[in-house]
């Protein structure tokens, strides 16, 4: 373990470099987890010294790409938290279905598993044709994967179980074609998706939505940054629109949370 050798000050200097040289601001991320990511990458890539690591991150564009990919946590799943998708299917999307058009923002979409899950639910509710899913992330590499809709086959069994638990009504395998290692999801599912980079820390509101999903992203932000992002979502959400967060995230301590009403027991709030 080399973790003892690197102190908070060094981490902060590195993150200041990143902001200055590349324009990405990680200074308001939860400290313990970003520090862990940085130390992990530093150890993995066998740098001689932290100073050399810092220098490479600052000056080497190609390496910075790797840094960004490794520092952001891109782990995700289809139909993760089946009860959440059940609530979307039963309580949220049918309400939005009464609108002529449904605009959804999946912020921090990672490799797209969430957006494809959502598209499947919209299809089954017969709302897909009038929906548009904006899927964004800070990390351009994950968006490239998301566009493909190709996921490792060994996860599909778990996804299929999640799908059934979430109230899915079709044969899950009808949504993809499998080869020996991967499953490629039906191309029509991505027809209603727009992929784009968007940094929740520094980029602005770009549209008005009826549903914003941002799950398991805010756990990486400190409280102040979380509140700034809630403000961004508030600016991007129509009246009576819905905001969905991850199972361990909450709107409760935000000063404007009174303007939102929780939907049952899931982490979904409706703007009043």
């Amino acid at each position, binding site marked *: *373990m080399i*973790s*003892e050798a690197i102190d*908070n000050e060094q981490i902060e200097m590195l993150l200041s470099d990143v902001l200055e040289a590349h324009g990405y601001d990680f200074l308001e991320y*939860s*400290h*313990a*987890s970003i520090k*862990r*990511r940085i130390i992990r990458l530093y150890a993995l890539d066998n740098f001689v010294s932290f100073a050399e690591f810092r220098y490479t991150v600052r000056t080497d564009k190609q390496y910075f790409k790797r840094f960004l990919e490794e520092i952001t*946590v891109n*782990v995700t799943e289809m139909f993760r938290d089946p009860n959440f998708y059940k609530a979307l299917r039963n309580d949220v999307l049918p309400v939005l279905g009464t609108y002529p058009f449904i605009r959804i923002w999946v912020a921090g979409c990672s490799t797209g598993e969430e957006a494809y899950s959502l598209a499947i639910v919209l299809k089954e509710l017969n709302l897909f044709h009038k929906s548009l899913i904006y899927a964004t992330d800070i990390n351009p590499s994950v968006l490239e994967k998301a566009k493909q809709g190709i996921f490792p086959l060994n996860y599909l069994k778990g996804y299929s179980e999640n799908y059934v638990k979430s109230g899915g009504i079709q044969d899950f395998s009808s949504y993809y074609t499998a080869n020996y290692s991967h499953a490629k999801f039906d191309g029509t599912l991505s027809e209603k998706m727009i992929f784009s980079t968007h940094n929740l820390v520094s980029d602005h509101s770009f549209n008005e939505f009826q549903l914003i999903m941002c799950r*398991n992203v805010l*756990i*990486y932000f400190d*409280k102040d940054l979380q509140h700034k992002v809630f403000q961004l979502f508030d600016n991007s959400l129509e009246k009576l629109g819905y905001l969905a967060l*991850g199972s*361990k*995230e*909450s709107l409760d*301590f935000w000063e404007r949370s009174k303007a939102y009403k929780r939907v049952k027991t899931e982490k979904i709030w409706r703007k009043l």
Partner: protein
Amino acid sequence: MAETLIKGKCEALIIGGSAGSLDVLLEIFPSLSDNINFPIILVTHRKSGNDALLSDLLRSRTKLKVNEAEEKDKILPGHVYIAPADYHLLIEDDETFSLDYSEKINYSRPSIDVTFQSAAEVFGDKLVCVLLSGSNADGVAGLKTVNDLGGIVVIQNPNTAIMSYMPQQAVNHIKAGIILDASDMAEFINKLVK
């Protein structure tokens, strides 16, 4: 004895366990003193979906407040926190929790190593970490960091643990570890009280 060395110095107690550790927790909790004046943080491997179960089991066995650790929660003395299933639990310098949904470590999330290491950096020599029964090696690397930074390492006696592999690995790697039977753990913990 180590107990007297660290008496009154403990600022956090972390207990990590895997297969076979529930029995130990159920044995420890009824005997814990109501005067525990440091936080107790539990990191155990278990299936996601039955998060409330462990809390309920422990709550019925102690007067201490038992809750699932929530992100940004201030870590308070006399409280018992349980790492939520399927997230790593980290500790910030300002003694609050962070959750992390990154890759599994040692096939585990929460990983005991992650919490031990992150706590060691915050609490240093005022940390006590206990590793219980289990059948993988999660927790051992974490205990090493705890030991290196001056914290106290306690290991369940592998000979009496339901699953000996995890504590045995710890015993092999950390010579300074205090080895205890499950039946002696509550008393050891009570003695840490200031």
